[in-house]
């Protein structure tokens, strides 16, 4: 059985420098978006999904764990934030904290259950757990079932930043994204991340070296779920609603697709993948259901011919780590 991701190059000073340059370029590019004519809501939405995909990638790309239920963190955080903001009338920063904490609590419970099995079983369990949550949210009164929670007030972040202004909201979302991204980047380059990669490559060996691999995997799962929840909380301010589509398993599939298109186990792949898929949905919306078919074709094409993804292929071509 071959490893999920391409043999990643060792972290050398050059690799770090490449990644830092790439990060700076990304930050500048995203920073100037409001100055151009690009529709900011599209970019904000893409940023939320990019962070979500990065969180998912932390788990599969570095831990070898394919979670097919990551939408549950997006949806749970969304519902928690939306409910706190709309019904309790809390401030935006508290709304984000509540949503992220909700996703964190969920990831502790689901992680504890799902890491008991590996490989495809892990994927099926996460998928089943997210479907369980879907049915709970469908019936729970506070989610308003099919209608979702609509018309969420945006308010003033820290009492200063007016989130109902698109430009202000954009920079807040961007700051959230960059912060989450750096946290993930720091994690994968830490000793913890190295152990995670060792577990991905050969779990029995990691166990024989004395690592309690279950604890590492659980911690990675919680971290990933929490960051995914953070992305879900940010998305509430962008979309101003929380609905069942965010919890449905097709959303989990889209997160997998974004990461696969960009490149599993690459630092920047999920970001690129998220932008590609969100742009595709935006511009192909007129094709109706054919979008699903196109996504399916991309899935198949990626798995059969293009397993490294966009960034993975570029990095492989230049023999760099990105």
């Amino acid at each position: 059985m071959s490893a999920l991701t391409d043999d990643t190059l060792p972290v050398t000073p050059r690799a770090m420098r490449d990644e830092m340059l790439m990060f700076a370029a990304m930050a500048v590019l995203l920073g100037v978006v409001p100055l151009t004519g690009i529709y900011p809501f599209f970019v904000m939405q893409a940023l939320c999904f990019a962070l979500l995909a990065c969180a998912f990638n932390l788990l599969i790309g570095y831990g070898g764990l394919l979670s097919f239920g990551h939408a549950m963190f997006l949806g749970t955080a969304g519902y928690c934030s939306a409910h706190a903001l709309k019904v309790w009338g809390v401030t935006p920063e508290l709304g984000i904290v509540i949503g992220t904490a909700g996703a964190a609590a969920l990831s502790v419970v689901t992680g504890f259950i799902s890491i008991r099995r590996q490989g495809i079983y892990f994927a099926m369990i996460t998928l089943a757990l997210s479907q369980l949550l879907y049915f709970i949210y469908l019936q729970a009164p506070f989610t308003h079932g099919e209608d979702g929670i609509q018309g969420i007030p945006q308010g003033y972040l820290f009492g200063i930043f007016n989130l109902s202004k698109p430009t202000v909201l954009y920079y807040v979302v961007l700051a959230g994204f960059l912060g989450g991204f750096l946290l993930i980047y720091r994690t994968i380059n830490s000793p913890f991340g190295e152990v995670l990669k060792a577990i991905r490559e050969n779990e029995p060996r990691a166990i024989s070296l004395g690592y309690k691999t279950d604890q590492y995997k659980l911690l990675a799962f919680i971290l990933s779920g929490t960051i995914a929840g953070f992305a879900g909380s940010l998305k509430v301010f962008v979309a101003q609603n929380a609905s069942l589509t965010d919890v449905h398993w097709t959303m989990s599939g889209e997160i997998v697709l974004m990461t696969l298109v960009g490149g599993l186990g690459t630092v920047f792949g999920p970001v690129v993948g998220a932008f590609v898929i969100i742009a595709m949905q935006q511009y192909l919306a007129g094709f109706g259901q054919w979008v699903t078919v196109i996504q399916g074709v991309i899935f198949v094409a990626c798995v059969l011919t293009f397993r490294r993804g966009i960034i993975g292929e570029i990095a492989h071509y230049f023999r760099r780590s990105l």
Partner: protein
Amino acid sequence: MQALYAQLLVGLINGSFYALLSLGLAVIFGMLNIINFAHGALYMMGAFCAYFLLNIAGIGYWPALIIAPIAVGIFGMILERTMLQWLAGLDHLYGLLLTFGLALIIQGIFQNYFGSSGLPYAIPSELQGGMNLGFMFLPIYRGWVVVFSLVVCLATWFLIEKTRLGANLRAATENPTLVRAFGINVPRMITLTYGLGVGLAALAGVLSAPINQVRPLMGADLIIVVFAVVVIGGMGSIMGSIITGFALGVIEGLTKYFYPEASNTVVFVLMVLVLLLKPAGLTGRAA
């Protein structure tokens, strides 16, 4: 009491579908090491195949029961030959991702042409009506589904566990290289196995067409429940899949009677409990 027996029967019917689908998944997993995410889509194709046969060619239920599984099985074998076989030797998560993509394509195409609403398929005239058993009223078609799928499940079990072909198959699962050295065409066996698993899914689709309406997404939500069934039962044995499938259907039916709010979630809750108490599943070998 009437309602309880009715829910038990519904549970047994759902259990038949769970058993047929998880059995097919187990057979495919055994040979190809792939969790066939497209299983739900192929189940749906089976139902649509019966629908087309009736409405375009005028071919009724009984021939469809044979033609649809063969047709969809051949389609499955084409998929295996053109795509799935290239994943041999890779991490089996890629198989899951590829078949997920296939499921999206198949379901998307059907949704484009048939929307999301259901198409009716009449119960064949021989199986219409019902019987009064004294304690409950049994619609004949429903009784037929339970008995017929039980027979098919046991026949599949017999084929794999008790015949020479099945012995070769199990041997090829354990050690393909060695079995090849005995002059057995392993790639062809893999293709046929995939066809068999897919055929079982399509058969379940035909059986369900007169009960549930024929819809493009009929398999999409079902497959996730079947995954939970697989996690609960483990895929270690063929008989395990059959028993777990039927048992969970019945438990679901009982829940619908005693506490309907939980009927959608009971299988997942059971999955959580089993994972906490017995992580390898009820009949499964440790993964």
